């Protein structure tokens, strides 16, 4: 049976779609083809992920990382 819009959003947002049976995935794809609102929801979730990856993955300050790394290694040697 074709999933409802509510069911489609649940499958997408929980990530359950990644582990659901092929039949269910196909039915969901069909629903998405026919339903503008669910397609929009799906796109918004995808963009959410992309924006979060860009925001979080901006490289950390190299000097700060190097200083932290040095501090950790120095402290470890101090303990030996």
């Amino acid at each position, binding site marked *: 049976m074709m999933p*409802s*819009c*509510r*069911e489609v*959003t*649940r499958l997408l*947002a*929980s*990530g*359950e779609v*990644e*582990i659901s049976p092929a039949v269910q995935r196909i039915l969901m794809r069909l629903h998405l083809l026919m339903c503008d*609102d*669910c397609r*929009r*929801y799906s*796109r*918004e*979730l995808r*963009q*959410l*992920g992309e*924006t*979060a*990856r*860009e*925001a*979080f*993955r901006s*490289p*950390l300050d190299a000097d700060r*990382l190097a200083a*932290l*790394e040095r*501090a*950790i*290694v120095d*402290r*470890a040697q101090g*303990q030996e």
Partner: protein
Amino acid sequence: MSSPPAPIEDPERTARIRARDPDTLQGVVREHLPMLLRAARAAGLSPDQADDAVQETLLTFLTRAHEFDGRARVRTWLYGILLKKTARAFESVRRSQETEEIDEIVEARFDEMGRWVRPPRGPDAGADAERVRAWLADCLEGLPDRRRLAFVLREVEELPTEEVCKILEVTPNNLGVLLFRARNGLRECLEIKGLRGRDDAEL
């Protein structure tokens, strides 16, 4: 539903870690610093607290490297140490009560047949990326620590589901609930900010 075993560490690397090979240990520290800092921030720590927690985590790793058994990836082990190190993260990330407000907000968007009555109207695909990023940072701030960390590990770090479950000590079903609430919470928050921005522009 049975979950597949979490990925294990490369045996050769495990042997070098256990033998405390200095270059290998330093390599592990260097490789994992950025992602541990991101996770510490995602767990709700301030930048200074995150620095301290990550230092303590890697120090623990260095002193206990010979105990590493390679049955999990070294990064899984490190995330686990980090969560234990951060008292606040441990309390609020592992044990916090999940409120269900967001579930009701999502539910109210559908009729009894499960069709949209209030369809999604988040920022458009062409919206100013810089602005959306700033909004998202705000929205992430407002997310409960546990949900934020689940979202960051799965969506930003792109760790496999089974590994995130292991780190957070939750079942795949629990993780699905956390991600459902995190993604919908963020989406609703962005939608509100986007609509408000549009109103401001019309004034």
